[in-house]
């Protein structure tokens, strides 16, 4: 990759960030605060100390995994909005294996992770199957399954899987053998960061070098050409959804195994939703998504510190995220609307583009 290409690829995300912070600065200024002071406070509580960095990274782990989940779907032309639901199901599955079974750690930890992965994959399998066999749009089904996941997990942690020793809607504590220990004590940075990093590498390899990645992307860019080339398009759609769900499930598993050590109702502050913005900002690439996840983790982590140190409310961070999404989303839309000039972004389906090109002289 040449320098110009890197600049070209990074240009939009950087511009989106610039605009977002600019707009936030104006809002802070208008409401009588000092933007520089606020942003400085945010930065220092996100990166100012070892503990701060650790906390930022902890918050970025689930964003990284769910971000990869969304990015993988988009590469195959699928918009998986159900990462949140898949994360919840994965988290509950991992928590259940964690408290219900008594096993040595060498088996227990992988088994918990596997349960989370399987739960997420299962939750995404159904939309994948419906899309592949009946053409049901995955956006609709994944959104609806999010709701099913909220209420199903809520139901289970208030009834069958409830910890009887407390009033709170939560599962019993997971056994110590099912918990991810600290990699670094500062900020509680647990081994989950390694899981996330491995997934980033695996994602990059899958997309760049593997036959499966080649076929997934072909399906995403041009289902017609993929089918003609003998690629099993339905199979690839199901596979992409399952892999996407597996990543989101892993996010849930890692979060309960490394941070909460139990599943409690509404433990996720919307990681699965933020992940859409993370993937868009990261341009659906492995490294981009990882960087965007760290950024969003830092925003989340820095927000509270900023509110404490200055009078700027932490909600300003939500504003920044929203503007980033608008910018990243504009590019996404541009690629989907026929007749507009397509860019070279990976992962945005170009089937309309082919037709538009054919129509042009």
């Amino acid at each position, binding site marked *: 990759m040449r320098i110009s290409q890197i600049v070209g690829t990074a240009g939009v995300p950087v511009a989106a960030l610039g605009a977002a912070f600019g707009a936030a600065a104006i809002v802070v200024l208008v409401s009588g605060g000092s933007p520089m002071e606020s942003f400085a406070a945010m930065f220092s509580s996100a990166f100012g100390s070892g503990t701060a960095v650790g906390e930022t990274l902890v918050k970025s782990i689930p964003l990284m995994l769910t971000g990869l989940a969304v990015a993988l779907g988009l590469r195959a032309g699928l918009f998986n909005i159900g990462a949140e639901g898949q994360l919840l199901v994965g988290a509950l599955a991992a928590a259940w294996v964690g408290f219900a079974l008594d096993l040595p750690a060498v088996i227990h930890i992988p088994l918990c992770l596997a349960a989370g992965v399987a739960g997420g994959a299962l939750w995404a399998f159904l939309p994948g199957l419906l899309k592949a066999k009946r053409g049901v749009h995955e956006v609709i089904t994944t959104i609806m399954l999010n709701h099913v996941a909220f209420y199903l997990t809520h139901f289970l942690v208030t009834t069958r899987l409830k910890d009887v020793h407390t009033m709170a809607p939560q599962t019993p504590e997971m056994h110590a053998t099912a918990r991810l220990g600290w990699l670094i004590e500062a900020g509680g940075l647990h081994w989950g960061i390694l899981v996330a990093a491995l997934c980033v590498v695996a994602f990059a390899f899958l997309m760049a*070098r593997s*036959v499966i990645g080649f076929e997934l992307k072909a399906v995403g860019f041009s289902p017609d050409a993929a089918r003609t080339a003998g690629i099993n398009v339905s199979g690839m759609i199901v596979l992409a959804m399952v892999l996407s769900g597996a990543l989101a499930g892993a996010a849930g598993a890692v979060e309960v195994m490394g941070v909460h050590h139990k599943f409690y109702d509404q433990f996720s502050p919307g990681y699965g939703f933020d992940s859409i913005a993370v993937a868009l900002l990261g341009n659906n690439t492995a490294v981009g998504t990882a960087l965007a996840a760290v950024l969003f983790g830092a925003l989340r982590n820095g927000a509270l510190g900023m509110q404490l140190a200055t009078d700027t409310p932490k909600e300003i961070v939500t504003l920044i995220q929203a503007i980033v999404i608008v910018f990243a989303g504009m590019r996404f839309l541009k690629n989907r609307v026929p007749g507009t000039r397509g860019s070279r972004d990976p992962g945005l389906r170009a089937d309309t583009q082919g037709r538009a090109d*054919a129509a042009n002289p």
Partner: protein
Amino acid sequence: MDVTPAVEMRQITKGFPGVLANDRIDFSANWGEMHALIGENGAGKTTLMNILYGLHRPDAGETLLSGRAVKALGPRHAIACGIGMVHQHFMLVPAFSALENVILGAEPVRFGQTDYRRAEERVRAICERFGLQVDLHAKVADLSVSAQQKVEILKALYREARILILDEPTSVLTPQECDSLFAMLREMARSGMCIILITHKLREVMANSDRVTVLRQGRAIAGLETNSTTAEELARLMVGERELVRPPEEREASPAGPPLLAVINLSVPGDRGLRAVDSISFQVHAGEILGVAGVDGNGQRELAEALVGLRRAAGNVEFEGRNILRMSVRRRLDAGIAYVPEDSGRYGLVSSYSVEENAILGAHRGSPFARWGILDRHAARRHALNLIERVGVRAAETRMPARFLSGGNRQKLVLGRALYRKPKLLVASQPTRGLDVGAAQDVHLGLLEACARGGGILLISYDLDEIFSLADRVMVMFQGRIAGMVGRAEADRETIGALMLGARS
């Protein structure tokens, strides 16, 4: 009759990224004449006419209508100036009736409502005047291609077009339908209209036009009176110094022996669930080219898709003695069937993938391009360079996305990729659509080469000249059935034309 030209375009220049489509072109057409604008694909004919119709803005040059300079502001303005254009791809609303399509956007209004009665009266008057016969109340979706074309012409006439541009109007018609179209157009010219015909079919030009303008590589090469020139001279002007199409080498008659492909009672559903192919049976032998002639939309595409596995079908398709109808596309590819789809930009190539990636697409799963599920990028690159060299794809870089290739180069890449696999059976659908003479010839040579190697070829084409120059036998399809099977010796334009219209042999 008015002596000032109806249209006069001076020094028109228009560039697109990487190509100068029109290079200081002078063009003029008179009232009362049928003017042919000819040239190979990519010569700039359509661009020039799109400029006249206001779809493109020229970089330089001016346009005069009846001697008055006009600034073309867009199609709306062009229509107001009396210009009508019938595009190659019709722009009709399929769910509307013919009448509704004709008046769409220019409805006569009475008390705030569309006055259908007045509209119909007007449209009928136009039909009678020029001998146009269309069922105005039929839904456009149910009309034949030639009737849809008439609706397009009516649209222009209804808007009082006096200058009518037709872009390749005969490419979708049978010989008989062409004759009636030209009779109608001549009538319009006689009434004083200016008819501009974009085409590359010299026979039509010689038979129907009054004057000809020849474009080559974006330049106006000649403006001639039709009766002072010959088809040979026009062909030479169109292609320049390049060698003209060679006559195909004589090949032996279809070899006997067991058929390579035996299709028995094959029925294929169309997109709307109706039977697009209706229990047909035929055979293709090794080393034979079976031409499939017919007007577009008579089941050819569905037949091709059923043979390669892209469409479900009922009946029997035996390839080398095995029934392949239940096999996936992938297994059929692996068994030695290759497919060159009609729209290679959409079906043949992943346009966002690089030339390199497209070169291996379809063969990417196994040796030598992948091992243990991991792609070998170097092998892909070597292969792409090899293909580029062998079939003459003009690509600056193998890493460049395929969407930046021209139509001809895309087609060559798809064909070259198919031929590289040394297929036993090649199903080629319109392999030279949109290609210029030189590129088409390369494609034809490729097909003949595959055939000489012992492969069987099913060549689907709407271009009779292509069928006649390549096919050993000609199968004519009409409404999903085989209207006739004619040997190379007996195939002539009249017989095939009649079969294309549904006459039984």
